[in-house]
């Protein structure tokens, strides 16, 4: 994970978030794979900041968009 994080710029557009489902790092129904306060993905959560950092560092963007409707999609929430 840390190595990929260094190479990719992760941009998560929080287009919508339901309750606290948003950005839950596991499959719905499961407990998070990351314990509270431990290292997870270093997301950028607005396009402006993500794009600025991509230009600065020269890294490609891994873009992920999700909405509350995606809560039934395995691996998204």
């Amino acid at each position, binding site marked *: 994970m840390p190595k990929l994080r*260094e190479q990719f710029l992760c941009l998560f557009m929080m*287009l919508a978030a339901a*309750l606290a489902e*948003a950005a839950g790092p596991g499959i719905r129904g499961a407990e998070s794979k990351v314990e*509270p*306060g*431990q290292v997870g993905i270093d*997301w950028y959560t607005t396009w402006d900041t993500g794009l600025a950092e991509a230009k600065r560092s020269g*890294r490609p963007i891994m873009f992920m968009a999700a909405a509350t*409707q995606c809560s039934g999609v395995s691996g998204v929430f």
Partner: protein
Amino acid sequence: MQEMAAIAKKYPVEFDQSQAVVQDFLSLGQALNVASADQRLLVLIAGPKGRIEAAREATRPAINHEDHLGRFHVDFETGDEWTKAISGAKSNQGILFVKAGEFGLSGRVLQQLPLDASCSEIHSALTQANETFMATTEQKQYQSHIRKGHRLGIEYESVIPYGEDRDGDGEIDQKRRRRTRR
């Protein structure tokens, strides 16, 4: 992961991580929601616009320190609006380490530094606050958490209306249509 690693190999770059742009959110509400869901502390940097822009630059090395990457979320706020959702702040500006509420609709300050705190002060406070957070936070079970939210009637307003255009009439249908029994 292997596919991501293969793509990343095509873009070999060298850059200074300590000067990376610091994350921000579109709103405090969104920041609290995501911090609660990810079970990370929220670093809220609040103050007048001019000082906030200076803080965006000054805090880069501390927030981008390898010990802290991926452990926090960061939000910048101007004005006083944020004080409605956050309790325990000593003043209406500063660098605040906030524990989001169970459903991400409110937050409580664990620690606060002045806006002009040094990078080493921020670095130490991040470490300390996260230790407190880890020791006092129970890992969420998403399924029971969501069930509880529904039961309590917790609502989160977002820019996208909830639901889908299930019948293709161009309008978002709020709820799943029930089948009529015959």
